[in-house]
């Protein structure tokens, strides 16, 4: 009889624990994920969906503009420990600000709690740009760049309309950043490409103490794309910027100087 009682008790316990799909080991995980969120500003004003095609901004050169689209790619979020150990999933995230897509991203990497220098790449570096990514080819009508412009992928598509100072006619602009490409003649064709220059750049967010469920906010100040070190003359550089080598270099220089910064770091 005792045997039956013990057996029933054991099996009952096994049934309860076996049917529980939530596996809770009850211990603090040794390794953690980090959640990144993306916020966007024009200087001090946060950019929300309702601002697109509505809110006017004035850039450093004096043009009044509205934004219609802001989509950009970041990749290779990297955590470098104080002993030099590097953790990176080498994955990427395509942020669509207007549509609110991918404003939160968790790199597929686990790392021990501790202090890390955190960095990421704006766009794709040459190594990543050589791959074929079905999800990016499927995004926004094809996020990839035509072969005659060097191939690879867009880094950013910022589009909108502007008014030059003293004018009343809106003009469309397309501020598209890609790998800088120089051509022997324009318009570009299959045989005109003479130089490709990797204009992706690394953004260093500094040292951050990572604990379980740490959240890191990455901020983009859109005004900085037009400001520093090059005061962007939108009346000159407003369209057909993809095959414009000089424009791509200027965008690169502005991009890596204050566009991105560390926002709030949260530990729930």
């Amino acid at each position, binding site marked *: 009889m005792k*045997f*039956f009682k013990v*057996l*029933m008790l054991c*099996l009952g316990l*096994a*049934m309860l624990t*076996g*049917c529980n799909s939530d596996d809770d080991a009850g211990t603090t995980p040794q390794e953690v994920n980090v959640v990144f969120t993306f916020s966007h500003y024009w200087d001090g004003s946060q950019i929300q969906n309702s601002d*697109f*095609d*509505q809110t006017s901004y004035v850039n450093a050169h004096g043009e009044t503009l509205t934004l*219609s*689209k802001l989509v950009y790619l970041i990749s290779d979020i990297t955590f470098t420990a104080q002993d030099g150990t590097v953790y990176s999933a080498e994955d990427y995230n395509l942020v669509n600000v207007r549509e609110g897509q991918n404003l939160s991203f968790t790199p597929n990497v686990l790392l021990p709690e501790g202090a890390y220098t955190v960095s990421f790449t704006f766009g794709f570096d040459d190594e990543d740009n050589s791959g*074929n990514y*079905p*999800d990016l*080819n*499927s995004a*926004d*009508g*094809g996020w*990839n760049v*035509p*072969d*005659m*412009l060097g191939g690879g992928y867009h880094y950013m*598509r910022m*589009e*909108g*309309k502007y008014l030059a100072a003293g004018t009343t*006619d*809106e*003009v*469309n*602009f*397309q501020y598209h950043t890609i790998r800088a490409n120089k051509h022997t003649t*324009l*318009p*570009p*064709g*299959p045989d005109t490409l003479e130089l490709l220059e990797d204009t992706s750049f690394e953004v260093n967010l500094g040292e951050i103490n990572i604990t379980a469920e740490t959240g890191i906010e990455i901020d983009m100040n859109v005004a900085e794309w037009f400001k520093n070190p090059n005061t962007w003359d939108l009346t000159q550089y407003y*369209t*057909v*910027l*993809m*095959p414009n080598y000089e424009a791509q270099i200027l965008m690169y220089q502005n991009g890596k100087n204050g566009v991105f910064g560390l926002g709030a770091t949260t530990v729930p």
Partner: protein
Amino acid sequence: MKRKVVVILVLSILVVACNKEDAAEEEYLATPVSLEIPPLFEENILPPVIPEDNPLSEEGIALGKKLFFDPILSADNTQSCATCHRPQNAFTDPRRFSIGINGEEGFRNSMPIYNAAWNYGEKFFWDGRAGSLEEQAFEPITNPIEMNNTWPNAVASLQNTNVYPPLFESAFGTKTIDSTMVSKSIAQFVRTLISSNSKFDRYLRGEVALTEAEANGLDIFLDESRGDCFHCHGNPLNPLWTDNIFHNNGLDEFFTDKGLGAVTGDPRDDGKFKTPSLRNLAFTAPYMHDGRFETLDEVIDHYSEGLVYSETIDPLMKKVGEGGVQLSEEEKAALKAFLLSLSDPSFINNPDFRP
């Protein structure tokens, strides 16, 4: 011996209790079908969207095809889906506006249908008002300027035949027909309408060469300063040739048809319509959401010198103040040659897509 019996009994309880599949909920399964995904699609873009609650089956597809071509769904048994979505026209209507069973004209050109399973955003119709292919298939039956039927009447018509109840039973496990099953089966058939064998597809597969005009046209298509078609219509790595997104492409200064804006209620969406695919243009005239352009030449002229400013015009429209990018006649001819290379005669002649 008794101990053994008890142990077996208890173990059986354990197994049954832990089994998440409830035998009582076992569902009817028709013969599963996997879409044959063209290699160019497989290599370069995400897989098609197949909803979990409407998997493809041999029986479901066959039923959907029969329904697609059967006028029984319309109130007076005179019009089928294929009346306005004709296979020989890549499943659009050569008339500018289709005419419903009461002789009333619509106000938009019928959309062609192919590669619809790859519409990742799942917004269908020119204005995006349907959130799935099932929803899309659901609407025309009761639309007063189309089939003008009621669902109870359409279902009763099907139920009262000898043919359909067994077909529904094969596809869905029941002879009791409902509107959901009708739209699901039509959506299944529509997902099989794949076009992937244009001359340009064969060029990408290394089977044929482009003519000089077609190759020049591709360059213009991909050149920001001339065509810049690719930002909305894709490129050789996106064989859909559409972004399936909504744009105002500079057709009108004022809108009599708000398009997406009428659906979302957001004035920022006024005048926006879904980008159509550039595949099969040889068969899909007239063009634009309202079929205003009878020829491809008129379409190219529009982007070259016919753009009109309005508040919601897409920033990708170039040189709006000058009417467009001002292509030369030679460039226009080359662009047209390339665009026509995206047409796929094998699609419109596919016997699987005919009644």
